[in-house]
């Protein structure tokens, strides 16, 4: 049985999905990659926008989510956090 993702893991998965797409991703792709319902994904995107980790840009009338420096910093911090958690069995 797989464990439920924590909030911090979901945030990491969202930001990583954006990062893996070169820093910019379409909402439909993010919905697929984040493995969340549309409503939940929207809540997280709003939360991440408030924290300035992603921004929404519009190119040719299409919306994209873009990773910010703050988002990249979170990804780096999370990698350390994950390694720390694993190493010390927390």
């Amino acid at each position, binding site marked *: 049985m797989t464990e439920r993702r924590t909030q911090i893991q979901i945030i990491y998965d969202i930001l990583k999905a954006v990062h893996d797409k070169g820093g910019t991703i379409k909402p439909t792709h993010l919905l697929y990659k984040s493995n969340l319902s549309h409503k939940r994904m929207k809540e997280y995107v709003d939360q991440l926008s408030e924290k300035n980790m992603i921004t929404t840009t519009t190119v040719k009338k299409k919306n994209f989510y873009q990773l910010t420096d703050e988002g990249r910093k979170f990804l780096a911090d999370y990698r*350390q*956090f994950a390694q720390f*958690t694993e*190493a010390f*069995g*927390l």
Partner: protein
Amino acid sequence: MNLIIGSVTPSWFHGVDIVFETFSFIIAIFIAGMGYKAYRLSGRRRYLAFAGSFGLLALSFVARIGAALLVYLEVLRDFRMVASADIAAVEPTFLFGRFVYITTVFTAYLMLVAVAMRLEDKRVLALMFSLLGILAWTAHAYPSTVMFHLVNLLLLVFIVSHYIANYLRRKTQNTLVTLLAFLMILFESLLFLTSNFEPLLYIGAYIFRLVGYVFLAAALIRVIRS
């Protein structure tokens, strides 16, 4: 005073142990800092308790360094024929340092046990820490260090069992390095316990601790570089 210092420490080791303690202090501070950073990111109290336990270990090293410095400086003065009243004057400070050391080490290890065993029931925790307080006082009042090292050994057995389970669950270099670190610290405690019978084991205990903290430093470097 000589009864306190001369029981197990070979004179040539005076001062070297302070270098070992300082190294352990630095590593403990960095781990506490990393734990606090993890708490800030996740908001989980488990990380705060982990950071607190290493913060207390760092404090214990400060108490031990202070007490050891006090003793060694008095030993040096002793050679210069200082009045014994001067030496007696520092004894309460030394004993206070010893008490702080015992209490902080016990509390730190019990916090690590609580984190490892996911103990969250406040009544259970209150009972455990109350019993530990009594044990700390008894260990302090007991002239030999046997009681102190025996309790440490018991707590470390539980901590190491957690790290064995952690390694078996995820067989990575990170989990192996941390397991080895706590195993070395367990051996350190075992050697300290037996050093009452063979003074050379006291040096061995310090070497095991140094190796343990080198492993902890290696684990920390791996985390930082990830």
